[in-house]
């Protein structure tokens, strides 16, 4: 059975006007895909194509107009918030803005279990330290604040935080685009290891074709909110069908 299935998803943003008709802008139209267990789905597209909106819809940070999203056999809209946090977690693009600057690393990582599962602080800290070791952060660093970490380390904190509730699906929105190549390779390797260890499924969003090709089993190409190509990564990159995918590939250095 598929973990996640998205059918005919439509989403538009409406700008309310004081006078005259409200303006409606379509961001996602008829998006369809499925995500199996232990799979990584890559989503590529340029700025404004709706990649991040899709991530927000899947984590229920934003609502959608029509379509059906089924997560582990349940309708996404009907899943209680508490259960949803155990199913889907997200890692954000900018490791500089997505961490609370006034909290220590271990507090940031332990927050999900302290908030959702009401784990007492001492136990939460033990679990956070264990998770830090898994993502390759030394436990000595646990009492440092975000500004004392490098970009790659911060992204590891973001990943550790997302894994604390043992989600089934991890959504990563441009997780490596703010990082240097050598650090990018470290984080990509880490993600592949974690996927095996935790039996995770991932949705990996990026504008970078080479990264998506490298990490994902399947690739989906979004263009102005529509899926223009979808298939196993090897095929999509070796034998692109849609003109836009071809242009993207030709532009990649």
């Amino acid at each position, binding site marked *: 059975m598929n973990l996640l299935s998205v059918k005919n998803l439509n989403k538009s943003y409406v700008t309310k006007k004081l006078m005259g008709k409200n303006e409606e802008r379509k961001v996602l139209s008829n998006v369809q895909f499925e995500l199996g267990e232990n799979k*990584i789905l890559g989503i590529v597209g*340029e700025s404004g194509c709706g990649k991040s909106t899709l991530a927000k819809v899947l984590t229920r940070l934003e609502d959608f107009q029509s379509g059906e999203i089924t997560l582990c056999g349940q309708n996404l809209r009907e899943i209680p918030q508490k259960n949803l946090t155990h199913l889907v977690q997200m890692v954000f693009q900018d490791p500089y803005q997505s961490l609370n600057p006034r909290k220590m690393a271990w507090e940031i990582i332990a927050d999900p279990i302290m908030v959702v599962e009401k784990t007492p602080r001492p136990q939460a800290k033990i679990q956070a330290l264990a998770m830090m070791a898994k993502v390759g952060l030394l436990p000595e660093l646990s009492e440092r604040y975000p500004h004392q970490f490098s970009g790659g380390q911060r992204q590891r904190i973001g990943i550790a935080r997302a894994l604390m509730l043992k989600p089934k699906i991890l959504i990563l929105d441009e997780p490596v685009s703010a990082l240097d*190549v*050598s650090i990018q*390779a470290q984080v990509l390797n880490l993600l592949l290891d974690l996927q095996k260890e935790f039996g995770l499924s991932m949705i990996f969003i990026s504008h970078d074709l080479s990264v998506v090709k490298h990490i994902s*089993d399947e690739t989906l190409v979004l263009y102005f909110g529509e899926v223009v190509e979808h298939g196993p990564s090897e095929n999509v990159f070796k034998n692109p069908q849609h003109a836009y995918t071809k242009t993207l590939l*030709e532009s990649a250095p």
Partner: protein
Amino acid sequence: MLLEIEKLSVQFKTESGNLLALRDVSFSLEAGEILGVVGESGSGKSVSNLALMGLLPDIAVINTKKVLFQNHPLDLNSQKQLSQLRGKSIAMIFQDPMTALNPSLTVGYQMLETLQTHLGLSKKAAKMKAISLLERVGILSAEQRLKVYPFELSGGMAQRVMIAMSISCNPKLLIADEPTTALDVTIQKQILDLLIDLQREKKMSMIFVSHDLALVKKYSQRIQVMYAGEIIETGPTDQVIKNPHHPYTFGLLKARPSAHAGKTKEHLYAIPGTVPSLRARPSGCQFHPRCNRSTEVCKKTNPSVSSLQPSPLQTSFSCHHPLESL
């Protein structure tokens, strides 16, 4: 020879002591040549360019043995000399066009200002020139575009405006510092192709700075790899790419996945650790803590940078245990 720099060092004076940002950097640039500069954040790749433009902050201390621009000696500490070159003979394109343009002035105002200052054109002549420049960089209905503010432009469009401004005085040297990092891949290709076109047409020299080795490989004739404020490998692009000698260059090449080759879901070659902070530089070779070939000698002595011959035809590198030629 358009530009010759010998032993350029830059230090930043701070409360916690002097920080060495650039150590004994020497390179030269022929007329009409494109030099690619690669390195990660903090490797000092922008510092040398900012020194050349006279745009470093006051806390910077610049030392050089020799700088020649068009065979005339140039004092990088003299704002007077530099301001005569800046924008005219040496122009620069910055990474983020949205912050490089003044948000409160129209595109036209900013373009005319440069043209009137450096070329002494009348307002009318400057306007004609601005329109033709915008048309040259592929902006449609150029006359109307002069009246818009930067926020009304897309990222790619704003970068085209920046390019138009930078070539407006026919510079001899164009410094493009990560010109497409903020842009989408399809736009990136358009912008770089445009830059190369202009470079050929105007016979400019270009210093193309990027963290992306794949891009530099495609667009430059000679390459310079920087690490922790030093040039660690330099040579003709195809030689360096095909046959990297320094383990860092090798690592950079291997760490980047390719959209055109390679298997999915395999581990990438990752360079462990991070670029050292200027406050905590390692002893000896700056790369040794991250290097899998390092030995005792690497910890003690820095492989002499002087062995780097700025010869345009040969690769040179600073490493005690270089990778063998293939």
